[in-house]
Every structure is written in structure tokens, then in C-alpha cells.
């Protein structure tokens, strides 16, 4: 009796553990259905390479969602920074991979700072501010591109960084995830983000500069979106103004599957990683188990909905169990 309870507690108590179990079950099913062709080194590395952008930006989105905000301008920032460095190469102004990454991140930082200031100092609702930013940066990406795009030839040197088989995207992913894991768990700044998200008034009263934390959170998101812009150019070996259009919803969905609450204060780096991985594996596995590409979005959407609804149901069950325990 006692043992059963503790097992149940482990399963429902930690979001990460249940996600890992679901992931393992999913992998086994896919492995069997695909006749053992799914879990190969090549497939796994492709999963990470093709979803590096989502995984990278999901970390920034985690911080933003933790404060109870949302940022839907990320793919526009991505397009603007990616287009900028694409054009820098197209017109032979700059070809240094490292400098191009720095420029992309700096553009992202600027965009994020603007979002952060408008939201924290101007007291504008995050969805509205970032919606405006979404229009502005996407529009500017079109305007600077002047209806042209940077082709694979233009960015040939730069795309060596992210081409199939290069280790660039993996290094960035690992470095950023380790950094965020440490920052969110063990530094003062990371804990302040949680404090602001759980209860902004209490955080303010206890001496935390709430507006400052908010601004920094959107700046982090901006830097990651800017870097994702450079990474996108490297991985897909081209830059168009319409790149990754609408993909911000994928990033938010990855976070939500990973257990990040949209009302703030709840969510972890590990959960975000698992959520993004889950999303990526499903996308990769569907064609392998015989479902055509046109079914992908429908199934992705249903999975998100089911995960979100299950989350509510388990939360309700947990609350009820807690109440019962208290009555005894």
C-alpha cells in the first residue's frame, strides 16, 4: 500500500518523470511500428538539427512564460536578424562566421530590449506589444530584403557551420541548455524570474526590481531569437524574409507540453527540453509510421490539446487528493 502510493506520487508528482516515461513509451512504439529503423544515429542527430531553432527559442520562451508573459514576435526577430546577416554576405560585406553570429545576437538583443522596455515601463500587455513587434520586424525584414533573398551560394561559407554533419548547432544547443540549467536553478537572477512569475506584488515588496527582471527576460528572449536567426541561415543555407513564419506557436507549444504554465511561475529547463524533444520526435516519427505529411499538423494539434487537457485532469486529481489528506 505504502509502496504503491509512493510510486503514484513519483509518477504524478514530477512533470519531468512522467514526460520521460511518455517519451520512452513513444520511442518504443515508434521503433516497433517503423520496423526498427527509427532509432539510428543519423535520425537522432537530424531530429536535433532540424529542431535546433525551436529548442533554442523554447528556453527564452520558458523565461518569458515564467513571468506570466508571452512573446509572439520571436520568429519576426529571427527573420529580421537572419535576413540582415544573409544580406551582409550576399553583398560581400562580411563573411566571418563568429562576427555574423554576434551581429545577429546583437540585433535580437536590441529588439528584445525594445519589447522589454515597452512591457515593463510602458505597462503594455505582452501579447499586444509583441504582436506589434511581430508586424514591425517581419515588415522590416521584407523591406531590407527588397523582395530578394540570400541563396545557398551567397551564404556558402557561413552554412558550413550548420550543414548536415557539422557540429555547430549541437555545440550551441548544449552550451545554451547547460548555461540555462545552471542559471535558472542556482543563481539569484534565475530564482528572481520564478519569484516575479509566482507573485509580482510579493516580489516587488520583497525588494526585487520587477520591471528590471521583466526587461531582462525579454532581452534574453531577443538574444536567443537573434541567434536562432543566424542558426536558421546556417542550417537551411538561405535567408528569406518569410522564414519560420508562424513557428512561434511551435515554440510555445513545446514549452506547454513540457509543463510550463502560461500563467507564470511554473516550469523548468529540463521540462522545456523534454517538451521540445517530444514535439520533435512526433514530427519526425509520423512519416516513418506511414502517415503522410498532410496529417502532421492535425496530429500535432491533437497531441497538444490532449497533453494540455490531461495536465488539467491530473492537476485536479492531485488537488482532490491533497484535500482528502488534509481532512484526515
Amino acid at each position, binding site marked *: 500500500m505504502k509502496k504503491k502510493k509512493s510510486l503514484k506520487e513519483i509518477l504524478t508528482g514530477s512533470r519531468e518523470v512522467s514526460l520521460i516515461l511518455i517519451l520512452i513509451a513513444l520511442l518504443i512504439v515508434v521503433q516497433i511500428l517503423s520496423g526498427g529503423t527509427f532509432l539510428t544515429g543519423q535520425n537522432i542527430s537530424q531530429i536535433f538539427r532540424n529542431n535546433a531553432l525551436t529548442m533554442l527559442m523554447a528556453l527564452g520562451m520558458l523565461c518569458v512564460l515564467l513571468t506570466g508573459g508571452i512573446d509572439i514576435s520571436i520568429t519576426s526577430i529571427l527573420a529580421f536578424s537572419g535576413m540582415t546577416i544573409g544580406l551582409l554576405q550576399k553583398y560581400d560585406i562580411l563573411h566571418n562566421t563568429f562576427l555574423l553570429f554576434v551581429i545577429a545576437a546583437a540585433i535580437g538583443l536590441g529588439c528584445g530590449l525594445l519589447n522589454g522596455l515597452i512591457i515593463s515601463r510602458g505597462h503594455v500587455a505582452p501579447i499586444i506589444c509583441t504582436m506589434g513587434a511581430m508586424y514591425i520586424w517581419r515588415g522590416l525584414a521584407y523591406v531590407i530584403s527588397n523582395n530578394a533573398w540570400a541563396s545557398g551560394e551567397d551564404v556558402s561559407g557561413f552554412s558550413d557551420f550548420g550543414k548536415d554533419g557539422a557540429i555547430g548547432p549541437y555545440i550551441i544547443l548544449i552550451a545554451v541548455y547547460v548555461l540555462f540549467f545552471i542559471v535558472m536553478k542556482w543563481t539569484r537572477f534565475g530564482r528572481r524570474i520564478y519569484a516575479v512569475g509566482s507573485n509580482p506584488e510579493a516580489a516587488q515588496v520583497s525588494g526585487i526590481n520587477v520591471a528590471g527582471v521583466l526587461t531582462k527576460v525579454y532581452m534574453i528572449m531577443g538574444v536567443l531569437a537573434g541567434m536562432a536567426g543566424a542558426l536558421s541561415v546556417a542550417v537551411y543555407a538561405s535567408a528569406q*524574409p518569410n522564414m519560420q513564419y508562424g513557428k512561434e506557436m511551435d515554440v510555445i507549444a513545446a514549452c506547454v507540453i513540457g509543463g510550463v504554465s502560461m500563467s507564470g511561475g511554473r516550469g523548468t529547463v529540463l521540462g522545456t527540453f523534454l517538451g521540445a524533444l517530444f514535439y520533435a520526435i512526433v514530427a519526425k516519427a509520423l512519416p516513418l509510421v506511414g502517415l503522410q505529411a*498532410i496529417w502532421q499538423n*492535425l496530429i500535432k494539434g491533437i497531441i497538444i490539446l490532449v497533453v*494540455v487537457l490531461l495536465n*488539467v485532469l491530473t492537476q485536479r486529481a492531485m488537488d482532490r487528493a491533497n484535500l482528502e489528506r488534509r481532512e484526515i
Partner: protein
Amino acid sequence: MAKKSGRTIDATPKGGVKRLIFRWEGGLVLIFIAVLILGSLISNSYNAVSVLREMPKYLCEIIMMFAMGYILIIAEIDISVGAIVCLSATMGCFAGNAGMPLIVVALVCVGTGLACGALNGLILTRFRELPAMIVTLATQIIFRGIAEVTLGSGGSVSFQNAGTIMPLANMVGPIPVVFFVVVAAAIIFIFALSRTTFGRRLYAIGSNSTAAAYAGIPVQRIRFTNFALIGLMAGLCALFYLSTTLGANTTTGQGYEMDVIAMCVFGGIATTGGKGNLVGALIAGFTIVCLRIALGQRNINTQLILVIIGILLIVSVLIPAISASLSAKKKRKTVA
């Protein structure tokens, strides 16, 4: 009783909020006139007739805008409407191609939209813990996914019996039919919002839904009605979309949800709920439509419009926010 509560709502914030809203709509009218002048300056063919002729393409978004205004006033959001338009237009197209008469095509469009909206509403009222943002995000992907599956590998369908749907694309004199639909919708929605119990309840829910529930307002039923309503209007939007484009594809309606929310916010409706009205949104909607037509006629990089809408959007929310914080500071000073 409604009269009494209406009076109390008006009486308290008369100094600040009401004057601001008043000024806001005045400002919008000025911006609207400025856009018209700008349009006639940059393009020779920019006149009432040509603008009205090009309008149907853009007007179908405004049909949805009123319902989105309701949704925002009760402090909710619906980002699935673009996908609902896509699905409804797809279904309408197939109905038309099967040789159905116009009335059936219309019913299919509106019915599909209503069903999608009702599904949103059902989930949101059964699972009240969930924010509308995440639910409509998921259903957005699902609705578009259903459309993708229906459309098959080609990803698009065209309306073959164009004659069926042509009556909707007709002109009455210089005025397109859809213009009358927008005007009728505007009158109904504005009247219902400001003069009926239902409308005033929306404000009550948006200001404080817990208090509204304790005051006996059926909050969940009204939430459901609103989500079903916006689905229905999205279906109507899809019908008129079909009449102008004569076809649907997987990207149909992409970004409509953001355009419509932008029009509402630019028109002075706060996404935090309980504030704003549809008159402002109507002027804002027509301002954006006329601006688009002006830039389109001049062949100015049409994406520049995105930058302009974005800036308008941010500035239009920054101004009230800043003036509110300034007046709060002043009040604090006088108290001290």
C-alpha cells in the same frame, strides 16, 4: 435595474476614462481622414469609387472584428479564427463544387465556423483552468490540419461553379454587397454591446469575472456564446473570402487573427478586458483597410504596411498606458 447599474458605471470614471475614450475616437477619425488625404496625394486613382471597388478583399476581416471585440472585452482571446476561416472556406468550396446552390454553400461555411467556435467554447467552459490562448493555439493547428487533410496533397481547391457565389461579389451601384453586410453587422453588434443586457454583461465579466459570477451573470454560458459567435462570424468571413478569391488553400486566412486583434486594439479595446467599444474598432478597421488600398495602388512595397500597423498598434496602447501612469503619479502627489 440595468439602467441603474449603467448609471453607476458611468458616474465614477467620468473625468478620466470617458474623456480619454472620447478623445481616442476623435483622434481615430482624424487619423482616418489623414489616411484618405495621404492616399489621394500618393495615388491619382485613389477616390471613393476605386477604394470601394477594391474593398471586398479586405472587408471580410472586418466582419470578424466585431466578434473579436466582444471576446477581448470579456478578457479572452481567440487566435484560431484564421484557421477557422481556412477550414470554412475549404468546406464551402467543396460544397460549391458538388453543385450545391448558394444557400447551401453559405450554410456549410457558417455551420463549419459555428462548429469550430462551439468546440473552442466547449473546451474552455469545461476546463476553466485553461487560458484561451493555449486552447485556441491547439485548435488553430487542428482546424488548419483538418483543412490540410481535406485539401489533400495539392493543398488548394478552386471554386468551379463561379456563378453560384457571384451574387455575393456583386456591386449595388458603386458599393459592394459585402459593405452592406459589414454595416449591418456593425449596427447589430454596436447596438447589442451598448444597449442590451447581454452587452453590459460583457463589460461586467471583463472587469471582474468572479464578481460578475457572484452577481448572478451566467459567465460560462456567455463565454461559450462568444466563442461560438466568433466562429460563426469567421464562417461568414470565409463565405465572402470565397466570393472574392474563388478558391481556398492551406495558407488561407493565415495571420487574420492577428490583423483582427490589431484592429480592435488600435480602436481602443483593452486586451485586459472591460474597456473600449466597437465604434473605435470600426474606424480603426476602415483606417487600416484604406491605408492598405492606398499603398497597394501605388505599388509601394506592400510589406511596409506591416511596419506601419505594428507601430500604430504599439503607440496606440502606449499612449493610454503612459497617460494613466502619469495621472496616477499626479494623484499620489496631491494626496501627499
